Every structure is written in structure tokens, then in C-alpha cells.
């Protein structure tokens, strides 16, 4: 059972739909009791960095999540903004991130105004390591991205996948211990995303 | 299954309605096919000559016209191959597709690839989706096996309508008795009256866009429009594996892994509805045909036939969703009463009365020979 955290940030229906499609049990929850019993957590997120952190605090989730992730070592996958808030800080806001993976969320800045922001659409990922989350991904895997900020982890060992947009290379997936994050939306990435979520379900 | 008798030639067995065996232990279906092969000269010089004559008449009829024939297409092997051959024979075909709105991507992709590659125009008749679903649902509620019959009949009607619309006299259809066999008739009956009757009794939506073929229209197509129904694969040497190989190589066409599985409604009939409600496994048509044609051995066919059918659980969900059936309603349908076309109004008796007329019409290619063979005689055990 995967618990999809509903903290008012973004599109949970499509994540739930994809889990259902691949026959993985999941539930959407904002109930702190329920979350404190979670076996596996999915942290979605669309919107702004500070708003997300605030909502987590307001809902009393910060302590529970710290306990689940850092002490109980429950596997967690952050998607899009849900990955960005795993880092230490963001150029988008002033609040401190969850700081589970040390890194910085930065703003895309391009001199050439033909390179549009957000980075929106299908892009490829490069991988140099084997990891349960990215296990057996097809050679031609592509994923759907939509974001104006990107993550750079401080320690290279925490970088799992890399993607380039407009000449900037960023970490499109990150990992440390039981904590994973993807910048792209696996739930919107056809069979490629399905494979990745299947992998997460098996961890 | 102690008394199960299996045909010595194919894999049809005594569970098939209307089957009987001769002194050699060979079934009447095999005998029927042998008879047709002789009559049509299938795959022989005679067949070829017969067909070449037809070809030249078709070509003559289309002189100075944009099209000289219409070819029904579904994206499946036979119809795709026929389109390919039509072009090779120098015909000017218009491809015609009846869209029952239950197509799979592989069907539409195949139609795209074949028509684009061969530069053939396509005419499509699309039924209103709500109406299609209502008609499909009425067949489930009626408890009869012919769930997909509305598609088969509409397909024929659309072919005839389109031929009339474009002033074409020749209708080519990719049926092959050799490759597909003649299907056992007692769970595969359809005519306009039958469909109308079931829909009248169980349908909710007004029938407006469904191309229903009434007896009157059937007569009109034959007698007024003089439309000839040609099945080229009855004459020429044909096998599905050979056809697939050519199609894949020449057009990028893709195989979908089984007879009729390119459409979700047909797929539902063959992999779920027939086996689960009626205990019918239609794989024996194709397998028997392959055995008769020497594509696979009888042992191989029996081996495949004895393997369970693997339905796609998603397809069940799809059917429930499209037809707005709750889990309970769906279960009730699958476990409910089984009926046959005899429980409803049909043209069957009328077809039988007109037997001699249809025999003549079949000889003149105005109706398919299989129509005459299957529909104009009382079924075994009937008066």
C-alpha cells in the first residue's frame, strides 16, 4: 500500500490512476494518523516551494514525515515540487526545505529568450548507476517535465538521473538511502513512467 | 467429455451445434469446404482463370471512374491483404471502414499504414457512440451470443451504401473459407430483423445512425443496384501467415495476435463473452482452418486449443465502463439465461422460402455464397 500525501499541492488523481492501472494499491490521505502508519509514501507537488513547505507544517506533517523517513526509513518518492522540497533550499522561496538530501533548487535563467521557461515537454534522462527505482528502464525512455526551477544536489552520489535543458544540466532524479525524487511526472509519462512507478512499488 | 468425437481432419468436435461426421470420421464443415474448393477452384489454375475473368469485368465497369470497387477494411489480416492485392491486380479500390467506435490503436494504425502506403482513399462510416453502446448492451441483456453481430451486419450495409454512393458495382470482401473456415452457424446468426427486434426489446436509445439492413434494402441492393459481392480469397491461393509476411514487409502492418482481436468488441466476444457465458471457444474456427490448409498440424492445433484462453482483465473493465454496467449487472449477464436467435424475430424463415432465388443470386455473385449456404437452409433438427 502506497500512501499519496494530500497536502493541497497538486494533481493527485493522475498518480492514483496510474497506480490503479498497474495494479498497485494506493490511497490518497491527509490524515496524520493514517500517514503515520504508511508503509510507503508518495509526495506529489505542484505550485511554489514556500507554499508547499508551509502546507506541510500547517498540516502537522513535518514531524510525522521526519519520523517516517529518517527514523523508520520508509521508502518515499517525491515528484516534481515534491522532489524539490526534499532539498535544503530553493531560490524560489525563503523557507528551509525538508533538507533530507542536501542540494539546492535553482531558477532556470537563459540569456536567449527563445529558450522558454518552464521547461515543458518530453525529455530524456541519462543514468550512470543502477538503482531499484530506475531498474530496467527502456533505453528510449522519455519523461514529461514541467518546471521552472531545477535541482542540483551537493553530493554527486545523490544524483540518480540527469537531464539537460537549454544547456543547463540538472538532476532529474535524486536518491539518498530510502529517499527518492523525480523532477518529471512519471504518472504522465506513458509506459516509461509506469515502469518507474512499478519499480517504486517493488522497493 | 467421454463421448467427445473429434473430426479426423480438423479439430471440430461433437460439441459444435449442427456437426455430423461421415463414415471416415470427417465432419460436415470439412466436407463443405472441400465442396467449395472444387466449386471455386481455390488456389488452382481454374480458380485463377475464373477470378481473372471477374477482374477484367470489374476493370471494365470502372472505366473512366475514380473507383471500380469498394473493399471492406478492418485493419485485420484478410482485409488488409485484399487491399494490397487489389492494388496489385490493377484495380482502383476505395477502402471502406465501418467504425463501431470500439477500435484498438492497432486496427486504426494498420488501416493508416496500408492505405497510406498503397495510396488508397478511405471512406469511414462512424456510428454514434451512444447508439453503438446501446445496441451492444441490448445484445448482452438479451442473453444471445451474437454480441458483435450488429457490427457484422452494419459492415455489409456500409459496404453496399458506399458502393451505391460512389456508383460502384463491385464489393470485395476479405473473407477466406480456407483460412477462416465456415463458422458454426448456431451462435453466429445475424440479420436486420434480429438486430432490430433485440434492440426494440432491450435498447433505450433511438436507432438513428446505425446502418440497419432490412430485407427490403437487401433486395434493393441486389435487384436495383445489382451489386456484386466478390470474395477474391475464395479463388486464389491464400494463407494468413503468407499474407502477414507480405503486409509486414510491404506496409509496416502489425499483427495483433489473434482472429478479430483488432476490435475491442470482437475481442470481448472471443476472449470473454463466448467462453465464459456460453462455453464456446471460437479458436477452433481458425485452428481448424489452419489444419485443413496444412499451416499447422492437427496435434499442434489441439495443443493450442487445449490451452486456456487468457482474457485481458482491462477489457472487462472497458466493457463495463462503456456500457455503464455495474459489477453486479455484469455478473448477472454472464450467469444469466442463455438465449438464441430462435427466441427472437428474424428473417430466417423468409430466407429459407427464398432459397432458390438466393441460390441463383449467389451464383450471380449478388449475394455471398456463404449466405446461401448458411442462411437459406433449416438448421439440423429444424423443420
Amino acid at each position, binding site marked *: 500500500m502506497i500512501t499519496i500525501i494530500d497536502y493541497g499541492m497538486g494533481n493527485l488523481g493522475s498518480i492514483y490512476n496510474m497506480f490503479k*492501472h498497474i495494479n498497485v494499491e494506493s490511497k490518497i490521505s491527509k490524515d496524520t494518523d493514517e500517514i503515520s502508519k504508511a508503509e510507503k509514501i508518495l509526495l506529489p507537488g505542484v505550485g511554489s516551494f514556500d507554499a508547499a513547505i508551509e502546507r506541510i507544517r500547517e498540516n502537522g506533517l513535518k514531524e510525522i514525515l521526519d519520523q517516517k523517513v529518517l527514523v523508520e526509513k520508509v521508502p518515499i518518492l517525491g515528484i516534481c515540487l515534491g522532489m524539490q522540497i526534499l532539498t535544503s533550499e530553493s531560490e524560489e522561496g525563503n523557507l528551509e526545505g525538508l533538507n533530507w538530501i542536501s542540494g539546492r533548487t535553482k531558477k532556470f535563467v537563459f540569456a536567449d529568450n527563445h529558450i522558454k521557461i518552464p521547461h515543458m515537454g518530453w525529455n530524456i534522462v541519462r543514468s550512470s548507476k543502477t538503482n531499484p527505482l530506475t531498474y530496467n528502464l527502456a533505453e528510449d525512455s522519455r519523461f514529461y517535465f514541467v518546471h521552472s526551477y531545477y535541482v542540483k544536489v551537493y553530493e554527486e552520489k545523490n544524483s540518480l538521473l540527469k537531464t539537460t535543458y537549454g544547456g543547463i544540466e540538472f538532476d532529474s532524479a535524486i536518491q539518498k538511502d530510502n529517499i527518492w525524487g523525480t523532477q518529471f511526472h512519471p504518472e504522465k509519462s506513458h509506459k516509461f513512467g509506469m515502469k518507474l512507478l512499478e519499480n517504486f512499488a517493488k522497493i | 467429455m467421454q463421448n467427445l468425437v473429434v473430426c479426423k481432419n480438423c479439430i471440430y468436435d461433437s460439441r459444435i451445434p449442427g456437426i455430423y461426421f461421415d463414415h471416415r470420421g470427417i465432419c460436415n464443415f470439412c466436407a463443405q469446404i472441400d465442396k467449395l474448393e472444387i466449386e471455386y477452384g481455390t488456389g488452382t489454375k481454374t480458380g485463377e482463370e475464373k477470378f481473372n475473368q471477374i477482374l477484367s469485368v470489374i476493370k471494365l465497369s470502372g472505366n473512366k471512374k475514380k473507383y471500380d470497387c469498394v473493399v471492406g477494411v478492418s485493419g485485420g489480416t484478410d482485409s488488409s491483404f485484399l487491399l494490397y492485392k487489389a492494388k496489385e491486380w490493377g484495380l482502383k479500390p476505395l477502402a471502406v471502414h465501418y467504425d463501431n467506435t470500439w477500435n484498438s490503436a492497432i486496427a486504426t494504425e494498420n488501416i*493508416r499504414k496500408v492505405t497510406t502506403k498503397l495510396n488508397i482513399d478511405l471512406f469511414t462510416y462512424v456510428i454514434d457512440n451512444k447508439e453503438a453502446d446501446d445496441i451492444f448492451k441490448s445484445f448482452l441483456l438479451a442473453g444471445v451470443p451474437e454480441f458483435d453481430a450488429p457490427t457484422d451486419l452494419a459492415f455489409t450495409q456500409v459496404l453496399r451504401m458506399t458502393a451505391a454512393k460512389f456508383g460502384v458495382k463491385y464489393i470485395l470482401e476479405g473473407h477466406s473459407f480456407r483460412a477462416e473456415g465456415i463458422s458454426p452457424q448456431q451462435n453466429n446468426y445475424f440479420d436486420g430483423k434480429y438486430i432490430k427486434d433485440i434492440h426494440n426489446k432491450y435498447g433505450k436509445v433511438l436507432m438513428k445512425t446505425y446502418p440497419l439492413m432490412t430485407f427490403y434494402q437487401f433486395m434493393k441492393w441486389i435487384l436495383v443496384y445489382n451489386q456484386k459481392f466478390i470474395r477474391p480469397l475464395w479463388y486464389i491461393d491464400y494463407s494468413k501467415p503468407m499474407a502477414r509476411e507480405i503486409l509486414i514487409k510491404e506496409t509496416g502492418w502489425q499483427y495483433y495476435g489473434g482472429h478479430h482481436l483488432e476490435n475491442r468488441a470482437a475481442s470481448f466476444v472471443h476472449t470473454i463473452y463466448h467462453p465464459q457465458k456460453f462455453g464456446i471457444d471460437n479458436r477452433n474456427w481458425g485452428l481448424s482452418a489452419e489444419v485443413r490448409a496444412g499451416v499447422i498440424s492437427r496435434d499442434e492445433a489441439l495443443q493450442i486449443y487445449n490451452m486456456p484462453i487468457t482474457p485481458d482483465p482491462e477489457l472487462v473493465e472497458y466493457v463495463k465502463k462503456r456500457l455503464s454496467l455495474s459489477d453486479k449487472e455484469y455478473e448477472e449477464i454472464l450467469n444469466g439465461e442463455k438465449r438464441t436467435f430462435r427466441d427472437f424475430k428474424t428473417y430466417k424463415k423468409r430466407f429459407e422460402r427464398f432459397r432458390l432465388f438466393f441460390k441463383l443470386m449467389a451464383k450471380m455473385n449478388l449475394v455471398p455464397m456463404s449466405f446461401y449456404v448458411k442462411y437459406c437452409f433449416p438448421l439440423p433438427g429444424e423443420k
Partner: protein
Amino acid sequence: MLRTRIIPCLQLIDQSLVKTVQFKKHNYIGDPINTVRIFNELEVDELCFLDIRATVEKREPNLKILTGIANECFMPLSYGGGLRDFETVKKIFSIGFEKVVINSFAVEKPEFIKKVAEHFGNQAVIGSIDVKKNILGRYNVYSKDGTEKTKLEPIEWAKKLEELGAGELLITSMDNDGTWEGFDIEINKKIANAVSMPIIANGGAGSIEHIGEVLLKGTVNAVALGSMVVYQKKGMGVLINFPDKEQLNNEFLKIKK
């Protein structure tokens, strides 16, 4: 490398899929859910659904159909048509769409765009502009499925929409819609040069070359396809399809050169 997005743009009238020619003459295409399944199997980049008559017929979006669509689709989805209040927009997002397309109501009440963008982010809002050229070659903005001519000037309106918070623009040429004659390069280029958000060109695609042309000369970022993905070819039968991927890639390579 970021792929150029080629987006089937499908027109709904309530539960039916249709296709128009120059915003008139609705041709029936088929069942939306089954069509979506086909596009899903074809792994298209993204899908856009527009209920073209919802506003005019004063209908709410058909949430049942949209839920059915979202349950089938594992790709980005956008919806437009009859979106006039925040609660409905919220529902559209909650069932699994990630973008809403707003046209008529933005003309009536521009702050609506702002409200949606502030709450769901700019990336969630596609501003939609229907343009038509008059006899003098001037472009006008139309609303309500092309039935109402507005006083707005397309380029100024595009800038205004960006300012209000739209993250993308869908530019539809009413003259070219359903003609298979190619995109209106001029208006797409003018708008693309005036704003910094991505532009989706819509209306008129008839061949893979047209797609290449509007990307290169119109300098747009994405392309919407209507007739091309629902018909076999011009004047021919309904056939749900997507342009050959290899041919598309060749066309993209030409642009890169």
C-alpha cells in the same frame, strides 16, 4: 533534448467527438474514450480537449466524460470549454487534468486567469485565442466558439494574458481550421515574438511539412493537430491516427539544420 510537442487537439460537443471546418459544420468523429485509448496506445505527447459548444450552449463541462478520459490517459492533458468558475476548474484538476484552456471567459473577466494561475501555477493555464483575418488583412480576436467578435487586438491580448499569468498560449486560426492548407504563419510568428511563454499553433495542419513550417517560420514551440489526426486525408474517412514518428523526426532534423 526536449522534444517538440505535437498535440492532438480534439473537439468535443458534450459526449461526442467532432471536427469542424472553419469553426462551422461539425462532423461526427466518434467516441471520446475509445479515441483516447487509441492515442494512449500510440503514446502521443499530450492531448487537448475542447468542448467547443459548452460556453455557447451554457453547459458545464461533462465531468463524467472527462473523468473517463483522465482514467485512461497517462500523458499530459488539457481541457477547455465552459470554464467559468473556480470550483469547476478545481474539479478538472482533481480528476487528473493538469492544464485548463480558457478562452471566452478570459475575454469577459480577465482576472479569472489570474486567479487560476495564482492558485495552480502558470503552467496550469493555457490562454486560448481564436483569431480571424478580415478582408483588409487585420486580425481580430473572437470568443464563444467564433460567434462573437471582440474589440481585442491579438498581440496586445496575448501580452495581457501573459501578464495575467497564462503559462502557454493556444493560437487558433479560424480561417485555417479544418482546411488542411497549413498554419497561419504570420499571426503565430507575431505573437511568438511578442511574448516569452510557449506558443501552440493550431488550425490548418494538413501535412508533416506544415508542422515543420510553423515551427521554423512561425517560431512556435508546439503544434496542435485536428483534422490530421482524425481523418485519413483531406475529404476522406474518419481514422484516428498520428503522423508517422520517423517522418516527424526527419522534419525536426530539417529544422535543426
